[in-house]
């Protein structure tokens, strides 16, 4: 599973961080950082993160 975030869309709502803390986080500068190739066991979490992104900036590729 590959996770792609469109950083031109991202507006730092942080909803993905709440939904999938193992994959998304804010770095020390307050910018979104993510694991680009998380374990497939985290798929539910990542799908939820994609669902709750207000900007629909998260895409899952297989």
């Amino acid at each position, binding site marked *: 599973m590959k996770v792609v975030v469109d950083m031109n869309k991202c507006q730092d*709502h*942080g*909803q993905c961080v709440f939904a999938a803390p193992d994959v998304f986080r804010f770095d020390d500068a307050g910018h979104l950082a993510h694991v680009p190739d998380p374990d497939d066991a985290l798929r539910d979490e990542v799908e939820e993160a994609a*669902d709750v992104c207000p900007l629909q900036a998260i895409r899952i590729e297989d």
Partner: protein
Amino acid sequence: MSTNVVVVGASMAGLRAAEQLRAAGWAGPITLVGEEPHMPYNRPPLSKEVLAGKAPFASLAFRPRAGVADVEWRLGTRAVRADLDRRVVELDDGTVLPYGGLVVATGMRPRRLRCPGPLTGRHTLRTLADAQGLRESLTRPGARVVVVGAGFIGCEVAATAVALGAAEVTVVDPLPLPMVGPLGELLARALLRRHEQRGVRFALGTGVTGFEGAEHVTGVRLDDGTVAAADVVVEAVGSVANTEWLDGNGLDLTDGVLTDGQLRVGGRHDVIAVGDVARFPNARYDGVPRRVEHWSIPTDTAKHAARVLAAHLTGTDAGLAPFAPLPTFWSDQHDFRLQSFGAPVLGKEDVRVLEGDPDGDVLAGYHRGGRLVGVVALGGRAAAAAAARHRAELLKQPALTA
């Protein structure tokens, strides 16, 4: 008996319900009925990026989960009737869809002002078509804009109109402060100052009695007889639930569709309601059923309700605790953001500044019975981050009882 699940309403709530039915293990047929010709799309940008001309439709459309690739879409058509005893839904093209499970996801439509005067030049904002029509009017040079209603949509449209270079932007509301309903006085006052500093005018504490003009609106008449000149009027005065198609089934449809704590409708196990049409009790707070028009609610309700319905359809036990979401909303206006977690509306009588101050970045805490029930940040990135830190605290609290 039909095994089809019919989802009526093809907006965010309907899409999420279908996806969550698949996630909950329902492998049978699903039909999605939607009045608009479009696949489900994201509405928050309509009052901001779409009005400002910065977002093409392709950027708004939701990317459906892979699990719903096989659902049947019936777009551009509308449910006109349902018979919950016979388990059928009738569409406006005469089709009768039998169902084994029904998802009510028909959402809301804008309320209109009923006062005398011309209709041309008056807009509402709910759909993509609405936003496109309004943009055309707002971008005419020298446009004088009157927004009726100082809620979420009204405040966002006013901010966008200023950014688009409208000659005058005036917000009219019978209440004394903008967004005072969801925010309470402290933040509503801070919000008013920010809008005024950025060029929005307000006529507060006044209603609208009529519209001036022959065919096209030229002004908005207020309670005291004065007229606010207008080329464009936006009516942002709340919404009405789309429930007429459910009439005649003995349901409580007084404000949306009443559900139980598992989002089931009318005591039935085969009918659930999702999204902002659902009036549900939130076990996190109390037993009072309320509709919640926040962006987070379609996804939250869909996840819970789909498990309930899938369990019924497959004859298993969902074993779920009552629905208890932590609501969240945000609103981008001018160069600032409002970010909320919890239910500040329940704690408006006891608002305390938790961080910052109302003229800059501020975080307000809303309390009921001395307990924190919601937080709202107003300002920039620092305020939103502060709200996020308090979210965990809100989540940890045991359920409140009325």
